[in-house]
């Protein structure tokens, strides 16, 4: 299937998907609604990561940096300045994009590729975590508790607990993220980004400026990830350096794309769903295990152990991810 036309079809799928997902809060509430919200958030982060890691081919092990910047920007703006979190979201997106361009420029300029690049992104995220842990200006290790704000709930992005409005917001943000990524990959810039991933030298020989388009992908990916971080803070009302910049966060961000299908539009969404289902399944299993698995009662770590096993299995047997492999099979058939 020709690449450019594929992305056209994705727009239709997006529209249809959104329509189908809008009425979900009518059927789900309470705990299940929370799960749905988290799935959509994961999907957003995964799609954002995939732009840089999958489409641009720049594997990032440190996306928590962007997530955390978005989260903290929102926390500071809301807590210290009493402004709307939407401002924090925009500010966070801009700052994350700037940080991404800086880190990306340094790395690309000095020829960091592949694993070295991945390790460098990991190092930068960790450095941010350590800095924020020591910086009093952002409450060091204590983090931020988001205060309840008065005013129009859509402006303050604070709804009563369990409100379906959170769902609508994250659905809209996910749709926006997908729209941005689809439109970008559909455009001239998107074709150039793909060509750089495939073969940077050949792309340059055809007039494509590698630095410019790689940085473009990084900046957009960073901004979208930061938006996810902003939502996180508003939904959970709390952020600290580990929750924002921790290595675990970077892993959770890249996991959906790996599992679902790196370098595809829908892979990360599918991956997010799989991961959440497995996660919830293992949590339920641990809470009330069947008699022959009694030993699992109250044990922590099962869900992450499963994620680990999942990564191993995917790399060994499904390097294109679940969605990616399915798509290949369908195409060949």
């Amino acid at each position, binding site marked *: 299937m020709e690449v450019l036309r594929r992305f056209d079809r994705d727009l239709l799928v997006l529209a249809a998907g959104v329509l189908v997902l809008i009425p979900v809060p009518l059927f789900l509430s309470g705990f299940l609604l929370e799960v749905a919200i988290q799935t959509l958030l994961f999907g957003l982060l995964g799609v954002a990561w995939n732009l840089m890691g999958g489409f641009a081919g720049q*594997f990032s*092990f440190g996306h928590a940096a962007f997530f955390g910047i978005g989260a903290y920007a929102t926390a500071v703006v809301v807590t210290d300045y009493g402004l709307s979190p939407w401002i924090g979201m925009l500010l966070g997106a801009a700052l994350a994009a700037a940080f991404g361009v800086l880190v990306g420029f*340094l*790395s690309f*300029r*000095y*020829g*960091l590729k*592949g*694993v*070295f690049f*991945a*390790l*460098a992104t990991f*190092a*930068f995220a*960790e*450095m941010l975590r*350590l*800095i924020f*842990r*020591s910086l009093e200006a952002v409450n060091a290790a204590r983090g931020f508790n988001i205060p309840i704000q008065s005013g129009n709930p859509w402006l303050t992005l604070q709804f009563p607990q369990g409100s379906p409005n959170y769902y609508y917001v994250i659905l809209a943000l996910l749709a926006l993220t997908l729209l941005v990524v689809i439109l970008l990959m559909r455009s001239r810039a998107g074709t150039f980004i793909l060509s750089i991933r495939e073969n940077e030298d050949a792309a340059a020989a055809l007039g494509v400026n590698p630095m410019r388009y790689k940085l473009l992908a990084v900046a957009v990916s960073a901004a979208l990830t930061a938006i996810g971080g902003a939502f996180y803070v508003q939904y959970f009302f709390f952020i600290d350096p580990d929750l924002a910049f921790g290595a675990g966060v970077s*892993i959770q961000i890249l996991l959906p794309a*790996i599992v679902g299908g790196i370098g595809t539009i829908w892979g990360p969404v599918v991956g997010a769903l799989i991961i959440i289902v497995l996660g919830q399944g293992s949590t339920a299993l641990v809470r009330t295990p069947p008699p022959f698995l009694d030993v*699992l009662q109250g*044990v*922590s*770590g*099962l869900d*992450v*152990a499963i*994620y*680990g*096993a*999942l*990564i*191993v299995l*995917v*790399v*060994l047997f499904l*390097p294109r991810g679940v969605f990616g492999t399915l798509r290949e099979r369908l195409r060949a058939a």
Partner: protein
Amino acid sequence: MTVKGLKVSGRSLALLGLGIAALALLLVWGGEALAWAQDNRVVLVQAVVTGLLLGGVYSLVSMGLTLIFGVLDILNFAHGAFMALAMYASFVLVRNAGFGPYLSLLISVPLLFFIGALVQRVLLDRVMDQPHENQLLLTFGLALLIENVLLMVFTATPRTVEFPYAQTGIPLGITTIQGPLNVFGAVADLPRVIAFLGSLVIAGGLFYLLQRTSLGTAIRAVAENPDGAAMVGIDVRRMHVITFGLGTACVAAAGTLVLPFLSLQPTTGEQFNVIAFVVVVLGGLGNVVGALVGGILIGLVQELGGAFVPGVDKLFFVFVVFVLTLLLRPQGLFGRKS
């Protein structure tokens, strides 16, 4: 770029710039810095001693990691997890079988050698041809799996193992060495000294193995030229398995050695893992000597950094070195593969 006809790379300019900046800082604040150093002599000497002792352990851990990379071209993100695994194995032996922690080396090291060899044979062998990111991902998944199974079995409660010679001191024939030791006015805890010495001994053993035995020669041959090695009849796959086992055995030894003075949790290996990566890049990927030197250096950087700037997490300085190395001298201090 060219400066007056001289070819100058951006990188060397950056290094030069750094050097000039450091020199300038030294000249401007050198006097004050010296006075400060005099006043804080004790703290600084302590930092050097602690850094050295810890650095020895880092060296051992990193040598295992760099050996694995040099021969198999695999960046083993599960290295730290194996360390934790070894530590729990020793812990169980100490608690339940009455072993002394150092005696448990006799079991933990071969056990982890075997486990590492198995992992290579069964899992990693399949991804040898895949891009490095996939291998990193695979070993990362493995790390998650191992650490969380440990979490499930042992929970996150910190475990400790007592240093057996704390009260009695180490009997050595006529004398008994009582800790802690006094080194130039700094305190050196006995278990740390033992870990340091033990690491050096094992590192020495590794060197001997690599340089003086036929097995070591075969391993080095595979690292240099896998195809050539295969052509002269070396079973390359077997060498891979053995090497991975050796690397894992190194980190297992390091883990058992630090058990008497660190508290043990499933995530204890993580910090060593990250530091090992920094050391390996600093020393040069695949360069065993580089890992040895790099380990000591990073230990010093960590402790001295913490001494100079008390407010910040010591790991920060390690990461600064890491990023600088990646940018300015990615091949490491000693270059790759020796």
